[in-house]
């Protein structure tokens, strides 16, 4: 039988160390909604999502109540809209109408984000893909809850540099379209390499075509729990350090597994995966950078940071994999700047640069995340940063992503406030040298060789 020490330990994790389940995300296939009539298509989408997810928030809240564990977000991911809207949409405005439908139904069922305003263009773009991408600035500036992601490369296909170049411009246009809100639109737009089909985390969640009709995916969290556990093993060797992270990750993940199974049972929707990511929030004590500090670097970004992050990420996976029957999604430590107080402190102290962040993304998911850059950064420079990050994903057979926010009207040294879970961020300097000739070449970077690994 459970003893009082175990009960106290669990409840301290919840009450003092910010243990929570970060998100229950219901993936919904919209392939059966396809119609060549746009109004009919929008009706089908609204009805399918409403019917599938109307009890999602209520069920999440009830599970939270019964187990005493906060479930922070309830969300929906859908089939990439470029596939769903291809038959009906003839202009970017047509696609934006689908975005408005998604926004409306998300509000009606009470979720806080809906992901899947997406296109998968790792090798080439269809006309529908191109129209959807062109509609992103309008779609993200006229909706609140819709998130967009574009997969522009993969290990199997190489990198679609035409799409990378285009996204450089789209990111900038989205920033301009939402400039009165500090370019917030860009916080809802992710560019991926090797995007997973079952990611529950926003802004990059979509319901891949390899998935079932409906699925429940759960994202766990718990940086604060790992940090607190590590406080007890200060000064001890790597064996002790790694064992401690592994055991903690196991416990955290078991809670996610329980919540996922309960949600799946109560909603009558199959359980998909647990995403093992350590996802920080701006709350004090809920920071991945603080874990790195506890491991032994003065600030995130100091020499040793990449190694510390690599071991952290690997131990979280080792502990988490055993705790869950199915693991998927992104599963790694997130290092968003604005959503992590320790990362913000590191940038403000001058310890952390964009280049060091790029190095850190080689050993963890998900990439250059929630980084505010000067609003006058050129489209081609943004495309160059995207290309670098995609190359890391392609060569290392892992997911990488870019979520940059060029804050229109602001420059280095200023800060930008997004509010809520998105936090605030100091604007970081960007390398000023040009990559115009590189990103303007056009075409694709070929898929890498899968042997001779060094």
């Amino acid at each position, binding site marked *: 039988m459970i003893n009082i020490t175990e*009960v106290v330990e669990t409840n301290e994790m919840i009450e003092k160390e910010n243990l929570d389940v970060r998100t229950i995300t219901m993936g919904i296939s919209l392939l059966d909604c396809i119609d060549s009539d746009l109004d009919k298509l929008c009706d089908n989408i609204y009805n399918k999502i409403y019917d599938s997810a109307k009890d999602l928030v209520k069920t999440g809240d009830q599970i939270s109540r019964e187990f005493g564990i906060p479930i922070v977000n309830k969300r929906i991911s859908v089939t990439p809209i470029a596939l769903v809207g291809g038959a009906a949409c003839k202009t970017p405005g047509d696609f934006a109408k689908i975005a408005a439908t998604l926004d409306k139904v998300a509000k009606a069922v009470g979720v806080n984000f809906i992901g899947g305003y997406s296109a998968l263009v790792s090798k080439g773009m269809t006309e529908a893909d191109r129209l959807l991408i062109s509609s992103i600035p309008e779609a993200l500036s006229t909706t609140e809850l819709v998130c967009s992601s574009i997969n522009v490369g993969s290990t199997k296909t190489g990198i679609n540099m035409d799409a990378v170049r285009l996204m450089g411009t789209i990111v900038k246009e989205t920033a301009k379209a939402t400039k009165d809100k500090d370019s917030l639109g860009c916080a809802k737009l992710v560019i991926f390499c090797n995007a997973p089909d079952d990611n529950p985390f926003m802004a990059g969640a979509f319901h891949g075509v390899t998935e079932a009709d409906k699925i429940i995916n759960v994202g766990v969290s718990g940086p604060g729990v790992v940090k607190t556990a590590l406080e007890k093993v200060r000064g001890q060797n790597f064996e002790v350090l790694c064992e401690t992270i592994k055991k903690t990750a196991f416990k955290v993940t078991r809670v996610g597994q329980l919540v996922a199974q309960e949600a799946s049972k109560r909603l009558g929707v199959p359980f998909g995966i647990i995403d093992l990511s350590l996802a920080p929030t701006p709350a004090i004590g809920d920071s991945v950078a603080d874990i790195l500090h506890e491991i032994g670097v003065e600030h995130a970004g100091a020499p040793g940071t990449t190694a510390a992050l690599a071991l952290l990420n690997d131990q979280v996976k080792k502990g988490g994999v055993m705790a869950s029957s199915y693991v998927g999604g992104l599963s790694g430590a997130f290092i968003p700047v604005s959503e992590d107080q320790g990362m913000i402190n590191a940038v403000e102290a001058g310890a952390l640069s964009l280049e060091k962040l790029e190095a850190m993304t080689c050993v963890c998911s998900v990439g250059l995340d929630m980084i505010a850059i000067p609003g006058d950064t050129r489209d081609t420079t943004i495309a160059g940063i995207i290309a670098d990050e995609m190359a890391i994903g392609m060569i290392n057979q892992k997911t990488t992503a870019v979520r940059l926010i060029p804050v229109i009207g602001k420059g280095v040294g200023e800060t930008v406030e997004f509010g809520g879970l998105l936090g605030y961020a100091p604007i970081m300097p960007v390398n000023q040298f040009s990559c115009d000739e590189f990103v303007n070449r056009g075409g694709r970077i070929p898929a890498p060789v899968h042997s001779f690994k060094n």
Partner: protein
Amino acid sequence: MNKTIITVVGKDTVGIIAKVCTYLADSHINILDISQTIVSGYFNMMMIVDMAGTDKDFNTVADELESLGQGIGVVIKCQREEIFDSMHRI
């Protein structure tokens, strides 16, 4: 069997256990185990109870215990046993 863990945390005072037990008895909730300790100067009690015999639903019991706790200056939480089982047992 419908096991729930009730935890009571707060400043020690006369009659905490009596009040909680009276409420449980009135609600036909059977106590399976009680343990108590002092953690950093605070009264800490855990009860494992079986809610199979009560007519009240989980939310009602949790709400009523919460307000009972407020009345005597302690925090009372109700959680289904599975969260502790899954975290601490393989």
